[in-house]
């Protein structure tokens, strides 16, 4: 059907979203589980041991997808927050708020697994290499977004202020990453890169992609769920919720 006929804003109405999301969540959840099982099987069982790192490298199947997701989700948070700010769309802002905790979780998982990888491989729980340090700063950006939102009582003001912060964060991320790389190369003699992946056998790549897919579907499922909760909280007084409750 021609583009002009599609009501783009139909799903921007909280009620329509609520119903649609409710139907979709179980599918995403199941999909996440299946992809996760597939990914872990490939990663833990099928992919060969690495020549240098042995089996310790297998943490990469969680670490790398989590890192990818943490960055992707931050972009999405900024995107939806911007839509909410520019078009005054409440649901877009709620979606941004719903995505943020999952993004922060992914960042934390990336850092945690990074540390777990570091211990057997390099003997240290933490190494200040460029990527891990940037990941840490990304975690701070997520926490800043969530803290600002929590500190403001009025929901709309909270949405919009946090949106400005997220946009500034997104613009700053490349600058921060560049400056951390600069800092890293200046200070370190031997460049120890935590995330220098072993040369990829194709099964390794497959495993990481499957896990990435799993995390992606998981993120969608949890964010939709969280967003539904936000819709319930914020639209408390709306007639359709009163009817639902009866």
């Amino acid at each position, binding site marked *: 059907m021609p583009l002009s006929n599609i009501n783009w804003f139909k799903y921007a109405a909280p009620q329509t979203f609520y119903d649609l999301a409710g139907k979709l969540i179980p599918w995403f959840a199941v999909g996440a589980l299946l992809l996760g099982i597939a990914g872990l099987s490939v990663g833990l069982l099928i992919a060969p041991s690495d020549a240098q790192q042995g089996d310790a490298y297998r943490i990469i199947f969680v670490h790398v997808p989590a890192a990818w997701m943490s960055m992707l989700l931050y972009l999405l948070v900024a995107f939806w927050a911007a839509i909410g700010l520019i078009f005054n769309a409440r649901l877009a802002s709620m979606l941004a708020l719903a995505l943020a905790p999952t993004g922060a979780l992914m960042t934390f998982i990336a850092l945690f697994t990074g540390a777990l990888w570091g211990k057997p491989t390099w003997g240290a729980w933490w190494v200040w290499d460029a990527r891990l340090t940037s990941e840490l*700063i990304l975690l701070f950006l997520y926490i800043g977004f969530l803290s600002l939102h929590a500190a403001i009582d009025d929901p709309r*003001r909270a949405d919009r202020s946090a949106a400005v912060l997220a946009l500034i*964060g997104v613009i700053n991320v490349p600058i921060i990453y560049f*400056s951390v790389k600069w800092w890293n190369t*200046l200070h370190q003699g031997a460049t120890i890169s935590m995330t220098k992946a072993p040369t990829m056998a194709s099964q390794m790549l497959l495993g990481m992609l499957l896990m990435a897919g799993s995390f992606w579907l998981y993120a969608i499922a949890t964010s939709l769920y969280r967003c539904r909760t936000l819709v319930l909280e914020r639209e408390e007084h709306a007639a359709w919720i009163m009817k639902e409750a009866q």
Partner: protein
Amino acid sequence: MTGALHLFTAMGALVQRDLSLVLRRKNDSLATLFFFAVVASLFPLGVGPEPKLLQLIAPGMLWIAALLAAMLSLNRLFADDFQDGTLDLLLLSTIPLPLAVLAKMIAHWLSSGLLLSFAAVVLALQFNLTGESVLILFLSLILGTPLFSLIGGIGAALTLGTRGGGVLLSLLILPLLIPVLIFGAGAVEAHQAGQSVAGHFYLLGALFVLSLFFAPLATAVSLRIAVE
């Protein structure tokens, strides 16, 4: 009779007004400086008085202390005006809001960042830095501290009237100022290592120019959101 003011003259007059307010409450500015000195003294107390070690950590440490002191001083950028209602006057001004905001940021820098840069020269004496290193430190702070006021101003506007005050502001803004810290402290460290400082200053300068343009705009948007 009244006369109409040209835009830049009006901005200059705003800077003057803010500065005269600061002068009437000197304590705020002085407190920021003393906080800087206290934090700078904590480092040797925390890591030990070994001169070689102190010489090594001095640039980073003085930069961090300046950063923290600036974070605490950012509160007075908009909070007082918000409290007594005069922020409305700024929002209803015929001067474009980003320019009025820039005027306030300039006044803020003159009463905090600039003073911190001079104070750093004095404190650097405690850490055995060579004369040239101190000069590089001073110049890096002169170029970097305006960024504290510019980017910090965005945070001040976003956190207007919220619970959590200074801590929340610092949490939001410190990650964004990491590049400034890296290039600023890095310049002095590069000099100490006998390397060229030009790259660091170019990068600081680039950040300064970018922020000079974007930060007042972002702050103006944030103020309108915060006041609604």
